[in-house]
């Protein structure tokens, strides 16, 4: 049994955790790559990263995120940016705090510790020489959190909702990255960059043993069965989590259909013709899946009506005739 409010909070814990990791990867990549670029090149790279993270609409009203220092501040500690690492870490902490009784103590301690270490910087801008140290600290904390989740958390609905959130967010990031790469104003799809931004370069080399080419990389990121970040792997895990949640049966079918299309090569085939429309459709499908999960989780508002579902032995039935029978949670 899981409260609808808890399910919603833990789903978003998963999403924000994954978002934290993705943003840190982008920052890490930017910190290493931008130093080799001219300022006009750096500007394009920065715009691409902001686009990959889906933050164009947030960045635009804030003015220029053109410089590298602004980019780091914007992605790392800007509380006005809901996608910054600090915002995501705060969101994780807040949601874990409101579900504290059902998560492992260590999970809360790690998330709270990460937040407190971040707050130590206060409102001052992070000194550039501490960027790597900070990114390393966040990465390690994320790994510790993943460790507690995998090894210390009961495999109940709460766990499945965290996994579900992570898989959805990871899929959205991968598709966002591919979309940004295929619409790169520099006119080329940088396969190595894509692999670096998904921490998949080493895996790709081990699997294929040759220099990455765009088609191969896209194929690997969409349907690589040995890559935990591939879209197919993410959907498979999401399906697994959804299998234990009967209220989200419809979402499980949607995830399954999407995965089957990847598995059968249908999407890869279409990508070879016109990549951008296919990616756009994938993005749409994932957004639909996410909102369907959210709608299935959100508690009904106000008083129950005749259509409210009561838990009865044998499954859920509409309220009609007689009192609902209690079922031990």
């Amino acid at each position, binding site marked *: 049994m899981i409260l*609808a409010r808890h399910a919603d909070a833990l789903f978003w814990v998963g999403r924000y955790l994954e978002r934290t990791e993705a943003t840190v990867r982008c920052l890490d990549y930017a910190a290493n790559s931008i130093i080799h670029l001219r300022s006009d090149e750096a500007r394009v790279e920065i715009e691409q990263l902001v686009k990959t993270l889906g933050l164009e609409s947030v960045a635009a009203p804030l003015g220029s995120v053109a410089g590298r220092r602004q980019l780091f501040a914007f992605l790392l500690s800007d509380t006005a940016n809901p996608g910054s690492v600090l915002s995501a870490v705060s969101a994780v902490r807040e949601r874990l705090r409101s579900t504290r009784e059902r998560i492992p103590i260590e999970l809360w301690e790690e998330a709270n510790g990460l937040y407190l270490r971040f707050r130590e910087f206060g409102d001052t801008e992070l000194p550039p020489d501490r960027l790597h140290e900070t990114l390393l600290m966040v990465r390690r904390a994320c790994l510790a959190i993943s460790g507690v989740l995998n090894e210390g958390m009961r495999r109940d609905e709460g766990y499945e909702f965290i996994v579900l959130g992570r898989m959805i967010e990871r899929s959205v990031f991968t598709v966002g990255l591919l979309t940004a790469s295929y619409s790169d104003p520099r006119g080329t799809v940088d396969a190595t960059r894509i692999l670096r931004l998904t921490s998949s370069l080493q895996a790709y080399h081990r699997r294929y043993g040759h220099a990455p080419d765009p088609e191969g990389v896209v194929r690997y990121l969409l349907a690589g069965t040995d890559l935990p970040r591939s879209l197919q792997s993410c959907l498979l895990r999401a399906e697994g989590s959804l299998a234990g949640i009967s*209220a989200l049966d419809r979402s499980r079918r949607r995830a399954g259909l999407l995965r089957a299309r990847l598995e059968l090569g249908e999407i890869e085939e279409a990508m070879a013709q016109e990549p951008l429309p296919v990616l756009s459709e994938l993005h749409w499908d994932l957004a639909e899946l996410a909102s369907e999960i959210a709608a299935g989780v959100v508690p*009904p508002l106000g008083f129950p009506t005749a259509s409210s*579902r009561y838990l009865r032995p044998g499954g859920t039935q509409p309220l009609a005739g007689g009192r609902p029978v209690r079922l031990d949670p």
Partner: protein
Amino acid sequence: MADSLPKPGGGLLDGYEPGRGFDEAFESDGSARSVYRRIVERFGELDADEARRLERLVADEFRRQGITFTVYSEEEGTERIWPIDLFPRLISALEWDELERGLTQRVAALNCFLADLYSGEGAAIADGIVPRWLVVSSGGFERNAMGIAVPHGAHCNIAGIDVVRDDAGRYRVLEDNLRNPSGISYVIENRAAMAKACSWLFYDHAVQPVEQYGRMLRSALESMAPGGQESPHVVVLTPGIFNAAYFEHAFLARSMGVELVEGRDLVVDDGAVYARTIEGLIAVDVIYRRIDDAFLDPVAFRPDSTLGVPGLLGALRAGTVSVCNALGNGVADDKAVYPYVPDLIRYYLGDEPIIDNVFTYVMWDPDQRAEALGRLDELVVKPVGESGGYGVLIGPHASDEELEAARRAIDADPRNWIVQEVVQLSSLPSFTQERLEPRHVDLRPFVLTGERTEVFPGGLTRVAMRRGSLIVNSSQGGGSKDTWVLTPEYS
């Protein structure tokens, strides 16, 4: 027999002078009381640097776990790390036995009083033990609770009884807390932190464990299920993450293995309470609520409450759910009713109180009022409707203007005040960042009642951080101490 006071060179206890009133650790001649002898020796071996290091270890542990409390009087409500002093309070098995019996007796009488009152019988009132006008004028008296069936007559399922020790070392009850007493989570976390940072302190003692509280509480709450059903669905109801005691609410739900719900997670339909889950609505049998009566049900009480559950009172009346502590307990822990508790013990149980009250003047009695007003500068003035130490005036520390203002306030509304003799709270060595000095302490033991009554070993020892201060409330800058109840062979 007391042993001689160890005088280790450079130790934290060098130059220690027992405080005013009863010093729990030392005899008046400066020698350590036998129960504290080994702890005193251990602290004599510490220096200030080491003690500061240990304190930091404990504070870091609390910070990491987010063990904080909120001080509302400060701007915007500040989150503070829970303060704990390293020097523990020790209670011998013999002493504990008496306390345990006294507390059980007191809570039993208070439960009898509430059951008597809200069943509509009102025997204690009819027999003149407590004045009717006093009861019905109490802010804690809840007419809506009349006639609601409470399993086992257990209205106070979780009681926190504040006790102090007078000059002679006798325990006395200072205050009853029968609505939503908080602090138990800090008792357990204090022990966990002390065991990590100062495990060596425990080596010479056998201390009763405290981690069983969740099991005890769950069993008491389960026994409150309507109809005595097996495996009832228990939840903890919290106002939410912005409440000062949210940490405790989450702690309790976790240690019992039950859900922590907010008002919006529950719904009442057809006279029963349900939790909104992703699978639909699931019936709830017992609600351990950490929300005051007035906010529980916006239909029956404050309509502006967004914390409660609309229709909950109806479900209570229908007998489909139990709310713990019961509705309307505030009448029994009203400070104006407190002076009558010893008589209630005699009336319901036929026994003499094992733990006395602090001597209290009731201001609605003209003779007692005249006597108290004549020597207000020697007494403590308390408003009956406040808690947490707010509004308390300590006569010997008050200015003439403050005393005059108190006199006027008492004359204007005698029902609203009680006046007590100053109890020079007992003291214990406490770390001042340089050395150990005496600081005043009180004790809040917790008494759980369901089908039967159990006293949780120890309780929350609160300590005043300033020398000579009698204010121990954490909201007013007080700290806490780990409280050890020793097993018989070590006492």
